[in-house]
């Protein structure tokens, strides 16, 4: 007669892992059945091989797009892994006996399709079940789990408790369950019953231990019926079985295991659970809770100290006492993670979670990344990469020789299919995504004509390192696109100011990642709220304007940018006047931004032109503002006649007046000329005033002014200088040709000698210098 023992577990639970091993030792079964994809038993060997380091995962994926994936993560303290390990150590057989991964893939595809049809996001079922448990117990579910189960010190006690837990999970979720999901769960259970029956039929005399989630334990104990066999047969031979799929082991990370990445089976704090697992083993079965609590708090303190913050042992002791009291207050014997965290905040973080947030992340989640033996890893990202190379006709570039590729992103009108028309655009997206991931396969070369947004030049070279990086990218996502989205998301979270966020926006656009574009727009919005320098805001406005203008070449919906630009624009206008009161070096940085914003406002008529005019007028009249900037504002306003001529001359007189510092006047003129020179040259009045100004300077003043003026006019072209000369000649009543020739003439040797005067001696000294040292 077959003796079957059933053991209900919670995934990733140290206490379950420990007592499962104890049960296996006691029962010594010939066969262990484990909840997991029954078609992937072959991957078990890799999982328990000596080179394997955890966390790891089994990843199954479809080969054809749309790519569907299903993931089975394992940590060292996973009961499933410990069961496989025990079987290997003792030479027994272990088998997965849940639905094959190919069927699971089919199920997830259905879920996705249904979700798209219904358009309302499916709420994760587990949550409502846990909420109900919370209602009953009055304690948050995680804390409840830790108080009741994780501190258990007896295998039989735990097995009983798990039974009750499983039963209540079933009870609560039956009420809340959506149909499609409950059908799926029932199907899994039918399949597991069938597999148990088959295992018994194979050899009726062996002992079997069955390991499933506590939720399923009671269901898989029922006998397998004809109905079960019929239903599973239907599915196995039906459309839900996506047999064109593949599976691989892959290294996983604690970060991905934690709930940040959305895996709901309760590994919020994988590193803390690892501590619990270690402590329980060290104490051979006694609850490791107290020991783990001490380690948790000590690690937080050590982390704080290592980063130069104060955290004494006395604080750790106080925190431990507080955590224990909190546990008692909630009816627990040993502090739960939530108690530890509260205690750490109170005693080590001085009441602020933000002070210890990184320490908490390091202690609860950790940065551990697993490793798998060579040759066992074949990830979906690798396949995605190869598939895309083929689709985009880039395969020939996959050689170790460096090759060039020129892309024209515009629609190719000479070909028939849509795909071919945008081939280069899609290639560009793909290559940009690879560079976001840092794969190192391709590199964009700078083009001379950097305004041509439709043309790109790439240099491509395949290296073994690129292969490794692609495997690493699978930690970020299951396809190239997903991984790139994740990476840009990380950058966005780290971006601290408008400038960085706007730059990421541009990258998302280049890589064709619509999700990121939206997030980036939001990030620009967020970072635009702080005390941003007007020049950063102005630069971001310029970037956004470019994005808006050239976004359509990349066929994207950019309607969200407009309100954002309006907002930044307002901010720029409000803060400009204050920031223009600055020194010369700052003013030089702000000046080009003034021009950018002016241009941007001219292009987009949704921006409040009147407000900009008002702001620039205010700046032009503001005597405290840097003369370079107020001059520039005048120049911009004069360009299209937005400032009355009398007003312009009045301002000019004011800035060039005797009382002002002479160099300030010259700076002002430099600013004025910084924009549209033609508009200035055409205004005779300006030259009249300038001539008057220079005439009135005495010798000393002239010397300081001439430097600035010379610098200003050095940027004028010969043609412009000619026109100015014409103006001046007219003013002075000299013949125009003579004047022009004089202005544009090359300096004679005597003249240049005279100018460089004092420097000459310096030059001769350098001549003697020995440059060959």
């Amino acid at each position: 007669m077959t003796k079957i023992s059933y053991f209900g577990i919670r995934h990733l639970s140290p206490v379950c892992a420990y007592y499962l091993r104890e049960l296996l030792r006691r029962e010594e079964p010939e066969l262990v059945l484990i909840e997991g994809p029954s078609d992937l038993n072959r991957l078990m060997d890799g999982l328990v091989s000596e080179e394997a380091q955890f966390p790891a995962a089994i990843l199954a994926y479809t080969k054809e797009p749309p790519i569907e994936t299903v993931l089975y993560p394992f940590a060292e303290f996973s009961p499933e892994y410990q069961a496989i390990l025990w079987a290997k150590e003792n030479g027994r057989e272990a088998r997965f006996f849940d639905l094959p991964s190919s069927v699971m893939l089919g199920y997830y595809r259905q879920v996705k399709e249904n979700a798209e049809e219904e358009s309302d996001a499916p709420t994760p079922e587990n949550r409502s079940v846990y909420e109900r448990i919370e209602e009953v117990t009055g304690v948050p579910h995680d804390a409840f789990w830790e108080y009741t189960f994780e501190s258990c010190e007896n295998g039989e006690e735990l097995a009983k408790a798990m039974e009750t837990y499983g039963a209540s999970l079933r009870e609560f979720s039956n009420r809340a369950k959506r149909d499609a999901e409950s059908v799926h769960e029932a199907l899994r259970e039918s399949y597991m019953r069938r597999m148990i029956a088959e295992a018994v039929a194979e050899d009726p005399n062996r002992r079997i231990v069955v390991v499933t989630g506590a939720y399923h334990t009671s269901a898989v104990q029922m006998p397998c019926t004809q109905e079960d066999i019929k239903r599973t047969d239907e599915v196995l031979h039906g459309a839900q079985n996506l047999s064109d799929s593949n599976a691989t082991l892959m290294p996983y990370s604690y970060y991905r295991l934690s709930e940040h990445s959305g895996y709901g089976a309760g590994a919020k704090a994988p590193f803390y659970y690892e501590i619990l697992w270690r402590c329980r083993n060290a104490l051979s079965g006694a609850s490791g809770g107290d020991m783990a609590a001490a380690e948790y708090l000590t690690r937080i303190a050590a982390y704080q100290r290592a980063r130069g913050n104060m955290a004494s042992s006395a604080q750790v002791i106080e925190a431990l006492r507080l955590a224990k009291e909190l546990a008692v207050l909630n009816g627990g014997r040993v502090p739960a993670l939530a108690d530890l965290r509260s205690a750490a905040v109170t005693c080590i973080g001085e009441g602020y979670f933000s002070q210890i947030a990184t320490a908490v992340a390091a202690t609860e989640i950790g940065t551990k990344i697993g490793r798998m033996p060579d040759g066992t890893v074949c990830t979906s990202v690798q396949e995605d990469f190869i598939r895309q190379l083929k689709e985009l006709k880039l395969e020939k570039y996959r050689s170790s020789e460096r090759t060039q590729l020129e892309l024209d992103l515009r629609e190719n009108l000479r070909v028939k299919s849509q795909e071919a028309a945008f081939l280069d655009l899609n290639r560009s997206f793909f290559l940009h995504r690879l560079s976001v991931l840092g794969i190192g396969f391709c590199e964009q070369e700078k083009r001379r004509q950097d305004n041509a947004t439709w043309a790109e030049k790439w240099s491509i070279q395949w290296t073994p390192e690129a292969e490794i990086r692609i495997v690493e990218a699978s930690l970020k996502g299951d396809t190239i696109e997903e991984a790139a989205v994740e990476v840009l998301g990380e950058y966005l979270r780290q971006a601290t100011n408008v400038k960085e966020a706007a730059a990421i926006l541009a990258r998302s656009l280049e890589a064709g990642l619509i999700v990121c574009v939206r997030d980036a727009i939001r990030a620009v919005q967020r970072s635009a709220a702080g005390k941003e320098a007007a020049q950063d805001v102005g630069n971001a406005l310029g970037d956004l304007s470019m994005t808006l203008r050239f976004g359509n070449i990349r066929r994207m919906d950019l309607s969200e940018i407009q309100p954002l630009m309006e907002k930044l624009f307002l901010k720029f206008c409000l803060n400009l006047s204050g920031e223009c009161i600055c020194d010369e070096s700052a003013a030089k940085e702000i000046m080009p931004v003034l021009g950018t914003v002016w241009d941007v406002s001219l292009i987009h008529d949704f921006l409040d032109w009147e407000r900009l005019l008002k702001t620039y007028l205010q700046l032009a009249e503001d005597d405290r503002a840097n003369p370079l900037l107020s001059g520039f504002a005048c120049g911009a306003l004069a360009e299209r006649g937005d400032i009355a001529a009398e007003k312009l001359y009045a301002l000019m007189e004011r800035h060039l007046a005797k009382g002002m510092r002479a160099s300030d006047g010259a700076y002002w003129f430099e600013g004025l000329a910084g924009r549209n020179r033609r508009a200035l040259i055409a205004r005779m009045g300006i030259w009249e005033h300038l001539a008057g100004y220079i005439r009135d300077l005495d010798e000393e003043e002239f010397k300081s002014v001439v430097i600035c003026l010379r610098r200003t006019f050095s940027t004028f072209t010969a043609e412009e200088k000619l026109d100015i000369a014409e103006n001046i000649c007219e003013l002075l009543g000299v013949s125009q040709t003579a004047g022009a020739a004089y202005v544009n003439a090359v300096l004679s040797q005597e003249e240049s000698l005279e100018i460089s005067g004092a420097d000459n001696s310096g030059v001769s000294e350098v001549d003697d210098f020995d440059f060959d040292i």
Partner: protein
Amino acid sequence: MENQKEILRIAAEETYKEEIRALIDAEKDPIPTGWQMSPRSVLTYICGGKVGNMQITPKYIGDKRLVEICIATLVTDRALLLIGEPGTAKSWLSEHLTAAINGNSSRVIQGTAGTTEEQIRYSWNYAMLLAKGPSYESIIKSPIYAAMEEGAIARVEEISRCASEVQDALISILSEKRIAIPELSDEVAAKKGFSIIATANTRDKGVNEMSSALKRRFNIVVLPAPASIEAEMEIVQTRAKRLANDFELRAAMPEAKTVEKVVTIFRELREGKTLDGTVKLAQTSGVLSTAEEISLIVNSMALAGSFGSGKVTDAELASALQGAIVKDDKKDAKVWEEYLENVMRKRGKEYSALYAECRSLL
């Protein structure tokens, strides 16, 4: 206490006498030395619940976990420091904690710039000192001294307003748990159950930095501004109503919609983003606390009652908002204008009248 009606404000343990009685009568859990009820009952008293047939009203609306930390701290005989912006119920919480634990919330030292070290330890009755010399009769005990003798909890309000040297007088009391009286070559040692609850305000102007030596001797709990807009509205409405009754204002309580507008604006500016989280905003230099919301509502009611129609209109609200948000700083005006233009203007009809009024004041 016979003519309680004339007393402006009644102590917590008096107001909630019956609830405390009921909790003590129904006590089942172990009671720490010096306490009158178990930690769990204190939690029920503060956060509300049911004892027998009696409904206990919640005194603190907010995160239960913070109250748990406070109580657990006092069980471990550590001192408790409550930090928060004005109007986050620091003093309120400390008063109710002592009322529940000791049945006496009156052992309190008000921290001011003029608080001296003597007020923390003990001082002398000088007439008696001159007549009898240093003796136990001539000592005037501070509330902390008294609490040590009785094994009870003393409160120090606004500790950060005291000068640093006065704050530091607490260091030795908290670590040694005794006060030396050199004049009598004696010392008073604290009985079990003694502890201190201090409150401090960090973002206000005119406060002294607390030394880290002192901070280390406290378990620190930071009380946040109300978590949800509903909770905040509830607090503002009930407190404003009570104040308006106390002051006998002749104006009607503003409608819930009006309160919601005020609370929304305050919350958004305080948190630096709109309630839906889509737009981030610049923050003002002022604190924009719940307490300010309450006084804003009460003030506009007083204005409307004494000089207006008896109903709070948008005009009164606008000037009160302007006054509360734009403090002496020019930057605040910019933040306010940016908020008006970027957020309020786009809010639609409900806000348009208020927007116009606010705009006209800029």
